[in-house]
């Protein structure tokens, strides 16, 4: 057995953009890059009960054992967790062998957390769905278009905190739009 080099640190798609962004001292909106592991579960809907995870209903997300499970479509979920190299194996084991297709998307989708008093004002410049708390409450989730890019919106605990999961290749472009639009409220970014 040869000595393997350790896994290098991950390069976020937001790295260059955030490094070049000056933070407002009093931000109305904050963008935080989140480096997550992510596994996608895909199965026939009648097999979902064979999966040993608390899978949320369509339009919903749930926190469980340090993981966040988000429904994307009937029979399709993502499970995300920070710093969890064992996440893929854990989910695959929970999926009872061949019950579901389990796909690593940890690098396929990038996550940005949007928070602050103007987070919703900023999001509605890019998406047509109703984000009012009456329509999109904590633990509600939606797959929708954000600045013409497919995105998963997950409303987290807190007055206005949203996790956005977007295809990695588009993530920086969406972040650029959010920063440009957020400047009127004051914007800050954290890597």
């Amino acid at each position, binding site marked *: 057995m040869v000595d393997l080099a350790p896994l290098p640190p991950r390069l976020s*798609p937001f790295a260059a953009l955030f490094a070049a962004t000056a933070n407002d001292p009093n931000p109305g909106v904050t963008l935080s890059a989140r480096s997550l592991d992510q596994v996608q579960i895909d199965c026939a809907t009648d097999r979902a009960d064979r999966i040993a995870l608390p899978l949320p209903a369509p339009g919903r997300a749930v926190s469980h054992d340090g993981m966040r499970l988000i429904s994307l479509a009937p029979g399709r979920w993502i499970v995300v967790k920070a710093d969890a190299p064992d996440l893929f194996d854990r989910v695959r084991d929970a999926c009872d062998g061949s019950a579901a297709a389990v796909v690593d998307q940890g690098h396929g989708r990038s996550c940005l957390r949007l928070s602050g008093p103007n987070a919703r004002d900023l999001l509605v*410049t890019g998406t047509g769905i109703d984000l009012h708390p009456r329509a999109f409450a904590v633990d509600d989730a939606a797959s929708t278009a954000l600045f013409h890019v497919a995105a998963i919106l997950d409303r987290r605990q807190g007055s206005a905190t949203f996790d956005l999961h977007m295809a990695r290749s588009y993530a920086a472009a969406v972040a650029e739009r959010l920063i440009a639009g957020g400047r*009127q409220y004051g914007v800050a970014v954290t890597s």
Partner: protein
Amino acid sequence: MILGRLKGVNAFRLPTGGEIDRRRALSFSFDGKSYTGFQGDTLASALLANGVTLVGRSFKYHRPRGIFTAGPEEPNALVELRQGARREPNTRATMAELFHGLEATSQNRWPSLAFDAMEVNDLAGRFLVAGFYYKTFMGFPGWHFYEQRIRAAAGMGRGTVEPDPDRYERMSAHCDVLIVGGGPSGLAAALTAGRSGARVILVEETDGLGGRLRSERETIAGRPAMDWVARTRQELDSLPEVQTLTRTTAFGYYDDNMIGAVERVADHMPVPPDHVPRQRLWHIRARRVVLATGAIERHIAFPDNDRPGVMLASAVRSYINRFAVRPGRRAVVVANNDDGYRTALDLAAAGVEVMRVVDTRPAGTSDWRVRCEAAGIDIQDGAAVTKVHGRLAVIGCDIAPLDGSDRPRFEPCDLIAVSGGWSPAVHLHTHALGAIEWSEGRAAFVPGAARQAHASVGAARGTYGLASSIAEGFEAGAAAAEAAGFPTASRPEVPATDEPGQRPIRAIWATGDGKKRFVDLQDDVTVDDIALAHREGFVSVEHLKRYTTLGMGTDQGKTSNIIGHALMAEARGEPIPQVGTTRFRPPYTPVAMGAFAGGDRGRHHAPVRRSAMHDWHAANGAVFVEAGHWLRPQYYLAEGTPDGKAAMDAAITGEVRAVRHAVGLVDVSTLGKIDIQGPDAAELLNRLYANGFKTLAVGKARYGLMLREDGIVHDDGTTSRLGEHHYLMTTTTAHAGDVMAQIEWYLQVVWPELDARACSVTDQWAAMALAGPKARDVLAAAIDDGTDVSDGALPFMGVTTARIAGVPVRIFRISFSGELSYEVNAPADWGTHVWEALMDAGEAHDIRPYGTEAMGIMRIEKGHVTHAELDGRVTLDDTGMGRMASSKKWFVGRGMLDKPAFTDPDRPKLVGLVPVDGRTRIPAGAILVEDPAAAVPMGKLGHVSSSAYLSPTVGHPIALGFVSGGLERKGQTVWAVFPLRKLAVEVTITDPVFVDPQGDRLRG
């Protein structure tokens, strides 16, 4: 030119009253001359306060024009605002809020406003009547020569040609109740809807709430009506779910209860504050809509009714009461309803001498009239204006009894206030396909049945009384909230108002006679034009509109349409509802294109897609090219090399040579990647691809071609078997999205019984192809877990996993360039680490990164097809790959393969092309013909699909194309012609594979 008036600082400003802030003076300029106005003015009110009444020239006849209204319906006072990149033509002076330093310029005049050379059009008016274009220039030789000049003479303002420096933003909003209009009925609706707890949005076009109450001397509960407005606003602001948007015009009512609105965030400022958008475009989804859009006053078409100084009566009251401006010193008021009396009283109160109220109705009485009489104002019944004196400004008018019982009598005046009654603003109601009905009592069209979830209230419904408007608002707001699921308490009590009794309107549309009785002031449509249209048979309102241009200006005929339609009804001898009216279309008022574009402009015109190695490419000299949404390195320039044609050619040549002779590395992350799993995955692939996939072994890749249902080639790519029930499909960059959608279509709709799941993993993997004779050496050196990549362990079309720089990667031995090549896939966040590791390992062999140009040249050298060949028109046989189609199975598209068009022997087929002279470039897209000198239209043999204008390997330009008969013509010469660029190149037809036809290199 002095306009016959005293010039001075705000000589026409009233000492007290109005909404203006006299402590905040604002300087501005009009046609280069400086003036002063106050905070709260519009450009129109500030001009009037300074005695400026001539502000523009008319569209066709270049007649002098003044300020006609005080609102969005303004047909005359259109000016250019601002300078440079922010110059905006055709803005309504009546809606432009004054700011310090505002620069406005009159338009459509030359050389100056007071002396306009094109005013000869007015004298030539008898030649420029309705239908002038059609009659004069139909079939006229050289029409385009004249068209340019006529359009210049009849132009509007000048737009800027510079890029718009401002930001625009699109906002999406949802609410239970949307209320359009912040006048008394809209405020009342907002109050009851808001109190229910429903989510309410109230949009108001102007800068403040109150609507007509800002311009009238009404009282509510014994106090000025604006006190009630202020109290109501205070309560609305305290309700957390009520959002009030001022300076916001709801311009269109669209399908499924969506209202488009534009918010003018910063148009009242010299420039927008940093980072703040100039305007926001709102898409509002409402469950219920209350239309409280008010009504628009109309005029009466009397001779020369367009002279500066003729003004709508409601505008006169606005200028007096809201802006504290006297719009004249001596006024004549002419009306067919009691608003004439109301206006006369306001004029008198403002110190304007009211010469006479001319009531077109026969003698009668009302509370309003009694008040007028008590104020000592002269009233003449049953009379009309028959002539206006003055050209650049009104100096008087002739008044005569309608029955001809007396001769016209001159009345000196500089202001003629006219009211022809009100038209409810049914625009949004009709956008939503709501019906309209003629109300004889109001002499107006009023809203009928709604098609979507909306109701009209107040003046928009033809309810002109204040108390009744408020009552309707209370009711409609509550009803809308309840319909949206929010129970409401009992209706609030309607406050007491002081409303004198009125006598009903008696419609009259035109008086006097003469050529220049204007119906549509913006389009210079006269009473005579309507009559002419009628005589010539254009009697339907839709024909009338197009023949005369009635209502086709930027104001969409807000003040004029009904007059024109009523005159047509008179001419036809039919009632107005039978003649009908044209349908209003969005937008209600003009909307800047920038607002529609929002943030989707410039670099963000479409979302930008970047590979995981993008920043490395940028730091290492890459020149990027757009490929769909992707940005891809086109070629790499050495540090310090300026870009240019020669530098580009040198870079591309160097990149191709590196790959052909040593090794190169290219980013292929853009290829589509689809993960397919399940017991039926193999069956799915076997149905999707034209060639067989059931025999593909684990650890192997296979090239596949898929067709559309109509038998045309859809896409190609390699698919690898990663496990027993696990495959990875790749697609071309261009078709990644639609191949994924097709697979979803078959799995969800056509073959739901197949036990297979597919998902896109394009973004999960950064992909790079290491190609060239030294590729294996470099790969082996980069691998750090000892994985064997020798030809025996990893043969052509083999697949394995390994670690490079600590990163777990997948390695596919496949080739697009025709060289020994490995495609390495790494999890995207580590893509750059793996890329750098390969570049480091290749340093000993002078590895070069290469871009899409070198890649494209090498695939053309190899005769590999891509989307340029697979363009949605070609069959497998056309590409020379017909043999690949399996005869042992059924696959998508097979059902169409035998159709006669596909088996026609003359179909163009894939060939190679080289220039006969060995050096001339063959333009891609050129048409292949036998003889470029033949008379057009000449027969077409095919076309050039891809061109390598330089091929470092072959030594001269080469191309791929499709030619009728295909390789049967091998060795023949034809011509590649490109008539738009006047190019014709003689080319020889060759094999499409120019390099290594046996494939020894890639198997090496």
